[in-house]
């Protein structure tokens, strides 16, 4: 299977601090790929470089065969990479439906068609009943699902999820896991997620990359990395095994 996303020796420095140090990995199409690691490991920086919010200082990022490193965030999204934010950012004064419609308008010029697509997605993500509510009035789990819906509306081939489970109770986590699994299985959507919630990682991911201090210290299946001594030492702790 050819890789949908490839990172080759990607680095980012912030005034003397090397946040991401020569990280390389490949995400095959159609998988759910997790990036885990302690806080400050460079996960979000890595994400931001893929998503286009930051430009790497070195290395190459290739998506669907084309280089995307250094492209602006909106250009990257137009290429088919959508993202959510660690701290959710819906459009607060707009309705749930309008939020997702905006996403759908990226590749559709007709507002009516975009709205229909938005409604489909809202149904999928269990937000259809709340579609007329203002985004600012939603609870956190709903806002997270809204962001996912909005990102999906842009019709991506790759979805970047930044700690989408954070702050969710176990039942809500399971719900989100089920939705993501469905999207991946039925729609063939490739998902790259940063996660701390190991429950979700074990349930979803087929590939895991572990970062620590900007360096990739392990890569493999969830079962394999959970037993990797370097990973245990730096991140998981003995209890996780």
């Amino acid at each position, binding site marked *: 299977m050819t890789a949908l996303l490839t990172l080759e020796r990607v680095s980012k420095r912030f005034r003397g601090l090397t946040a991401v140090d020569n990280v390389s990995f490949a995400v095959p199409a159609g998988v759910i790929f997790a990036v885990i690691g302690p806080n400050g490991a460079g996960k979000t920086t890595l994400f931001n470089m893929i*998503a286009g*919010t930051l430009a790497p200082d070195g290395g190459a990022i290739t998506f669907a065969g084309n280089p995307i490193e250094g492209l*602006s*965030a*909106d*250009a990257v*999204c*137009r290429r088919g990479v*959508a*993202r959510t*934010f660690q701290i959710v*950012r*819906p*459009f*607060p*004064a*707009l*309705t749930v*439906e*309008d939020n997702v*419609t*905006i*996403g759908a*308008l*990226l590749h559709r*010029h007709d*507002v*009516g068609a*975009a*709205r229909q697509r938005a409604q489909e997605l809202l149904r999928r993500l269990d937000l259809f009943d709340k*579609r*007329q509510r*203002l985004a600012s009035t939603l609870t956190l789990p709903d806002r997270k699902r809204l962001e996912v819906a*909005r*990102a999906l*509306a*842009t019709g991506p081939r790759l979805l970047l999820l930044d700690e989408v489970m954070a702050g969710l109770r176990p039942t809500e986590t399971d719900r989100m896991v089920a939705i993501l699994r469905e999207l991946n299985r039925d729609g063939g959507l490739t998902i790259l997620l940063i996660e701390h919630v190991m429950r979700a990682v074990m349930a979803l991911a087929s590939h895991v990359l572990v970062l620590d201090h900007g360096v990739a210290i392990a890569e493999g299946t969830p079962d394999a990395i959970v037993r990797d001594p370097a990973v245990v030492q730096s991140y998981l702790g003995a209890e996780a095994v």
Partner: protein
Amino acid sequence: MSGLSAGLSRRRAALLTLLLAALVAAPWLVNDYLLTVLILILYFAYAGQAWNVMMGFAGQLSLGHALYVGLSGYVAAMLFTRLGVGPWLGLLAAIPLAAACGAVIGYLAFRFRVAGVYFAILTIAFAEFARIGFDNWGFVNGSSGLFLPVTQYEHNDLWLLRGAPAMFYYVILAATALVFVLCHFLVRSRIGYFWLAIREDEEAARAVGIDTFRYKMYAVMVSAAVTSFAGVFYAFFYNNLFPEQVFSISRSIEIILGPIIGGIGTLFGPILGAFVLTGLAEALNAVMGAFGLELPGAKQVFYGVCLLLVVVALPDGVWPPLARRLGVAERKP
């Protein structure tokens, strides 16, 4: 039927038609002085709506809109006085120029990430630059002012915009109605949605693929182009242009008062705001006149107090709560 696609509810349509009918009949119902007041109100309703496109829709605070008014006015006036070119043709020249100016300001600002208050200051700087520049530019008569020849008042010449107040009234009424309709469609269009996204959260807008630079540029250019007509109208209605007056920051502030008091980002807000503001100001004048008081600056103090009250107590403007009362609330865009 949901969100911005709700369209015109019957009640809204009814109220709007009523208002329009009243406005169309006005010249037969009011005296000349009140007609002039109405012209002023509609002028500010128009200009305010044009400004609203940039601020209310795309979230960019411009405090230098007098620049576009002044430039357009001068272009049309110069073409008329030097070459006898009528205002409608003059408009064809003024619109691209205003849009180009907007593009320059927009490009400088957005390319270099000048936002928020800094952007507002940049717009003020450009308007001031124009004011001082024109004041010292002999070609347009500098500070002595540019005067348009007024040949007659009785015969209504629509082509040259020479004639009775009633003619000007209908012109500005038509323009205001058109701009209202334009905004109605803009808000519901793809570009309108993108503007809202940018206004709400620019970074999130980029994350869903919106080229925010391009759409902000569109907002600035459309706003400038629409404002252009106000400048041409101003020139041909008042028949004189002084840089000190036309480009003054007071003009820019007058333009924004209507939408702010009425409600930024709403469709009807700028119109209501213009009515409230000018209406109350004229009432104030009348009251003071009755007492024999003649205070230059009192009207401005009044404007300031109105602005203060609205900003403190009704930050969304007067229209949203009123609209809710009337049952015609605009779906909040």
